[in-house]
C-alpha cells in the first residue's frame, strides 16, 4: 500500500467464460474516494458457478477493496457460488481471511441483566452507598471533634480560600436572586392585600417569609449549584489524578485535608450569606411597596421591624448553617465517590447538586415540623 494521492479511479470489469465470471479490479481504491459497491450480482449473466477475482492493474488499495470483495464473498456464500480470490494480492487475501474470521467469531457482549439481577445489584449498591455515607459522616464528625487539639495542622489557608470562593465571590448572584425573590413576594402579596386595604402588611409578608424561609432556602439552592458542584468536581478530579491516593499513602486523611476546611467554610459563610440575602430581599419588597403601593420606605421598615422577632431571625440562620453543612457534605462525598474518569467527574457534580437540594428540602421540612412543635 502506498500513501500517494490517487491517479486513477477504482475500476471493476467482468468477463464471462460460460458459467465462470472473472472480475478484474484495477485503479486506486480509497475509502475516502469514490469506489464501486458490490451490487449483489446484478448485471452478471446467470447461471454463475464460479466467481474469480484478479488483479487487473491495482494501484493503491485500502479497506474499500476488502469491503467490495468481502461483500462479493458473502453473496457467493449465500447463493452457493464458488468464490476464488487467488488472483488478488497476497496481503489483501490475508486481510480478507481475518475479516471473515472476525465476522464469524464475533460474540455479542451481553450488557443487559435480567430484572432480578438488576434489582439485586441496585439493592447491593444502595446498601453500599448508605454504608459510604455513614462512614463519611462519621469520619467528618471525628475529624471535627479532633479539630481543637490539632488546630495547628488544620488547613486554615484552604478554609479562608474557600470562604472567599463561596462567600464573597457568591455575593453578586445572591444579591440578584434575593432582590428578585423579595420583589416577587411583594408583588404577589400586594395583589391580595390591596383588596382589603391592608397594603402595609406587605412588609410583614415579605419580611417573615424572607427571614424564616426564602432567604436561607434561596442561598442554599444557589450554593448547592455553585459551590457543591465545584467541591464535587474538584475532589473528583483530584481522585482521577491520584491526588487523593497520594494523600492516603502519606497517612494524611482526605477528610481532614480536603473536606473539613470546605465544611467549615460553608458552615461559617452560609449564615452570613443568608443574613445578607434577608436584607436584600427586604429591600426588594421595599422597592415594590414604594413604587406600586406608595408606602414610604420608613413606614415599611418600621412595619418590618415589628413583624420580625429575633427568634425568626435565629431559626433562619440555624437553617442556613444546616443547609451549608449538607451542601458541603454532599459535594465532598460525591467528589470522593467519583469514578476515575472525566465522565465520572461530571456525574459527581450533577449528583452533588441533586443530593444537596434533596437534603435541603428534607431538612427544611423537618425544621418546619420541629419549630411548630417548639412554638418558635
Amino acid at each position, binding site marked *: 500500500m502506498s500513501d500517494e494521492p490517487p491517479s486513477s479511479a477504482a475500476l471493476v470489469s467482468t468477463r464471462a467464460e460460460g458459467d465462470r465470471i472473472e472480475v478484474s479490479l484495477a485503479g486506486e481504491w480509497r475509502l475516502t474516494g469514490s469506489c464501486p459497491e458490490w451490487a449483489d450480482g446484478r448485471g452478471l449473466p446467470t447461471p454463475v458457478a464460479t466467481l474469480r477475482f484478479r488483479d487487473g492493474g491495482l494501484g493503491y488499495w485500502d479497506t474499500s477493496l476488502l469491503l467490495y470483495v468481502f461483500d462479493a464473498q458473502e453473496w457467493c456464500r449465500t447463493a452457493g457460488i464458488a468464490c476464488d480470490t487467488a488472483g488478488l494480492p497476497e496481503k489483501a487475501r490475508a486481510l480478507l481471511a481475518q475479516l471473515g474470521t472476525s465476522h464469524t467469531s464475533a460474540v455479542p457482549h451481553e450488557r443487559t441483566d435480567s430484572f432480578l439481577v438488576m434489582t439485586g445489584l441496585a439493592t447491593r449498591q444502595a446498601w453500599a452507598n448508605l454504608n459510604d455515607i455513614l462512614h463519611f459522616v462519621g469520619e467528618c464528625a471525628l475529624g471535627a471533634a479532633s479539630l481543637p487539639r490539632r488546630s495547628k495542622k488544620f488547613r486554615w489557608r484552604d478554609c479562608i480560600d474557600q470562604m472567599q470562593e463561596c462567600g464573597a465571590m457568591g455575593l453578586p448572584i445572591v444579591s440578584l436572586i434575593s432582590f428578585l425573590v423579595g420583589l416577587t413576594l411583594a408583588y404577589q402579596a400586594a395583589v391580595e392585600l390591596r383588596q382589603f386595604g391592608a397594603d402595609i402588611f406587605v412588609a410583614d409578608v415579605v419580611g417573615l417569609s424572607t427571614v424564616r424561609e426564602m432567604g436561607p432556602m434561596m442561598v442554599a439552592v444557589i450554593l448547592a449549584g455553585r459551590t457543591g458542584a465545584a467541591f464535587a468536581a474538584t475532589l473528583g478530579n483530584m481522585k482521577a*489524578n*491520584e*491526588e487523593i*491516593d*497520594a494523600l*492516603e*499513602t502519606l*497517612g494524611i486523611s482526605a477528610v481532614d485535608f480536603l473536606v473539613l476546611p470546605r465544611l467549615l467554610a460553608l458552615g461559617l459563610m452560609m449564615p452570613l450569606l443568608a443574613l445578607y440575602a434577608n436584607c436584600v430581599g427586604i429591600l426588594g419588597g421595599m422597592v415594590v411597596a414604594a413604587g406600586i403601593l406608595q408606602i414610604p420606605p420608613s413606614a415599611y421598615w418600621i412595619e418590618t421591624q415589628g413583624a420580625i422577632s429575633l427568634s425568626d431571625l435565629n431559626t433562619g440562620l440555624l437553617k442556613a448553617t444546616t443547609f451549608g453543612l449538607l451542601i458541603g457534605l454532599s459535594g465532598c462525598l460525591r467528589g470522593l465517590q467519583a469514578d476515575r474518569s472525566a465522565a465520572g467527574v461530571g456525574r459527581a457534580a450533577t449528583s452533588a447538586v441533586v443530593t444537596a437540594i434533596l437534603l435541603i428540602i428534607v431538612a427544611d421540612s423537618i425544621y418546619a415540623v420541629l419549630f411548630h412543635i417548639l412554638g418558635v
Partner: protein
Amino acid sequence: MAHSNTPPVIEVEHLECGYAGTVVLKDINFSVGRSEMFFIIGGSGCGKSTLLRHLVGLNQPARGTVRFFGRPFSDADLATRRLQLKNFGMLFQSGALWTSLTLRENVALPLEEHTTLSRREIAEIATLKLAQVGLGGFEDHYPAEISGGMKKRAGLARALALDPAIVFFDEPWSGLDPVTSRRLDELIREIRATFGTTMVIVSHELASIFDLADRVIMLDAGTQGIIAEGDPRRLAAESRDPRVKEFLQRGTQPYTVPA
C-alpha cells in the same frame, strides 16, 4: 544487594487482590529484603498496579496478609496503618502532585503532617529534596507549570520527604523519553546507594529492569499469580517458561516479525 541475613522488610503471604468481587491475583507470596531493588513485572493488565495498591493499603485484600518490618499492615486498623505509612514513600504513575500547591509545598506537606519541625526547617528540607532530584530553582512553580518528567521527579522528591525506608514506584518510566528515563534510573540508583532505601517498582520497562533490578517477580493474567521470581538476567537466559522468555527476551533480542 538484598541482605539475606537481615529479616525481610516486606512479607506478603497468600494475598488475594481484586475489585468489587472480581479476583485479579490470588495466592501471592513473596518477601523483599532491606535495600533491595525489587521489581514487579508482567504484561499489561496482569495486575501489577493492583498488587501495588494492595501493598500500600489503597485497597484492602480479600485474603492474605502484608507485613512491614514484621508488623501486620493489611490487617491493622486505619490509625495503625496511617502511622506505618510514615515509613513509606510512593511515586504515582502521573506524579499525582497536588495541583493547588507549589512544588515546595507539595514536598513540605508530609513533613508538616508527620514532624514537629519548624516552618523554616521544613522549607529547607523541601528545597533540599527538590535539589536532590534536579529541581532546584523550581520550588515556587505549580505542577501545571512544569513538564511530565519534572512532575515525576517532583513526585519522587515528595515520596522521599520523610526519608522513608521503602519507596514504591508505579510505572515511573511511563511517558518519559529515553534520556529522561535514564536520568531517573540514575536517580533511583543514587538514592538507594545513599540512604539504603528499599525500592519496590512496578514496571515493564525492560531496559530499566535489566539495569536496576536485584530481583523480580513476574505476574501473569492467565494464572492470576506469580509465574517467575529471581534475577531478571538469569530468568531471561535460563527460564523454560515461554511466557517469561518471550517477555524478558524482548529486551535483549532484536525484534523479528513473527511468521
